[in-house]
C-alpha cells in the first residue's frame, strides 16, 4: 500500500489499554510483593528520590505503569535508580521500595 505520500501516518494511541495489556508479569510481581499494592500514591518516594532529582526518573509513575501492564521501558527506567534507599525510609506504608526496584528489574529485564 501507501503508494501515495500523505506526509503523515496514523498516530498511535497512548492510552493505557488494560484489555490489550498482559497483566501476567504484573501479577507475578504483586504475588511476590503484595505490599506494593498498598501504595497510596502519596509520592514521598519520588519526592526524596536521589535519581529523580537528577533525572526524569519517577519511581511512583514507573511502578504504577508496571502494575497496569505497561512494561515497555520500565527496566531501563528502573536502572536510573541508585538504590540509595531513601524512598524506603519515607514510605508511609512501609513498602520495601528498594526491593520493588530489584524485583521489577529482575522480572522485566529479559523484555
Amino acid at each position, binding site marked *: *500500500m*501507501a503508494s501515495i505520500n500523505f*506526509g*503523515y*501516518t496514523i*498516530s*498511535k*494511541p497512548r492510552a493505557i489499554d488494560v484489555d490489550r495489556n498482559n497483566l501476567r508479569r504484573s501479577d507475578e510481581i504483586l504475588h511476590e510483593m503484595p505490599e506494593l499494592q498498598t501504595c497510596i500514591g502519596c509520592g514521598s518516594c519520588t519526592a526524596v528520590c536521589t535519581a529523580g532529582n537528577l533525572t526524569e526518573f519517577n519511581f511512583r509513575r514507573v511502578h504504577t505503569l508496571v502494575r497496569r501492564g505497561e512494561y515497555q521501558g520500565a527496566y531501563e527506567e528502573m536502572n536510573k535508580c541508585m538504590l540509595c534507599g531513601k524512598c524506603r525510609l519515607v514510605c508511609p506504608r512501609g513498602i520495601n521500595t528498594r526491593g520493588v526496584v530489584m524485583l521489577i528489574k529482575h522480572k522485566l529485564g529479559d523484555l
Partner: protein
Amino acid sequence: MKRNSWKEYQKQIADDRYYYARSCIRQNFFPGSEKAFIDILQNDLGRDLLDDPKHSSCTGIGYHSDIVPLETIMTVVARQFALMTEAGYENFVASCITSFGVYSEILATWEEFPETEERTRENLLKATGREFRKPASLAHTSDVMFHFREEIARKAKHKLVNALTGEPLHVVEHIGCHYAKIFPKSGIGGSEFPYVLAGMIESWGGQCVDYPERRHCCGFGFRNYLVQANRGYSIANSHKKLESMAPYKPDFIVANCPGCAMFLDKWQYAIAEMEGTTYGENGHGIPVLTYEEMAGLVLGYDPWVLGMQMHQVDVEPLLDKMGIDYDPAAKYLGRNGKYIGKPASAVVNGCPPDTLYDMRE
C-alpha cells in the same frame, strides 16, 4: 439504542421564517446538501427561509484555530445578527455545528459578561454603522429538520429500511462535538444522548447503533487537520471511531456536522490507501451521509441532485439496499450532462479499480 433522558433536553425550534447562515465546509464539500435543505424547507415544507447574499462566514474555523480573537468573532457574529434584524427576521439557523457552537457561546458570554456585548455593539457600529437585535431563537439546521421529521415521514417515498429484507437499516449517528458538548441544554437530547439525528432516523424507519466510541470526536481538531504536520492526530481519531463502529456493521453513517461528514468520508479513503483497511461490506467503505442527504433520499430526491457523487466512499451499495432508482451512468456527468471524466478508482471503493457503475453498464 436505548435512551430515556432525551425528552429532558428540549428547546424551542421556530416553525417558520428562518434567517439562514451558510457553512464554509458544507458549501465546499456538500453544496448539494445545502441546496437540498433550502429546497426541502421552501418547496416540500413551504416554509420561508432567507438566504441573504450579504452574510458571511462566522469565522469559527479561524476562531478555533486561535488566529481570530474572541472580540473579532463576536463582532462578525453581531454583523450577522444585524443583517438578520435589518431583513426583519428573528429566527437564526446556522448550517454548521461549529457555527452553532460559536453563536451559542457568544450569546451565553454576552449574558454572563454584559461588558463584552457592549464592546461588541461599539465595534460593530464603528466598523459598519450597523446595530442588531439578538435572535429570538437560535437553531442548527438539523434541529429544523428534526422539528419537521414527522411531516417528512408522511411525505416519505423511501424508508430507512432494507428493501429486500424489510429490516431497518443500522445507522451510526455522529453528532459533532460543538452541537451539545459546549451547552448540553442547547442540543436536543443533551450532550450524552443527543436525539437530533436519532429522532430523524427512528421516524424514518432506521435503527441507531450505540458503539463504544459513539461520543468521540471525528478528529478535525481545527489546527490538527488544517496543518499537514498535525494530520496524524486527525486521522487517528476517525480511525479510532471506525474501528469501534465496524463490528456493528452499520449500513451508513449520518453526520450532524459538515466537517465530521467530510472527515469520516475522506479518512476512510486515506486509511484504505495507507493500510488497505475498509470498514463496510465486501471490501468497501461505509457510506457517510449528511442529514440533508438522508432527508433528501427519504423524500425521493435523486442522489446525484443531492450531490452524493461528491463523496469519496461510493453510496451505491446503500442506494441499492434502500431500493432507490438512480442512473449509474449519470453519476459523474458535469452540468448539462457534459462528460468530464471520472475520478480515479480507490481502495476504499473496492479494488480492483474501476467503479461500480461501470460494471453495471
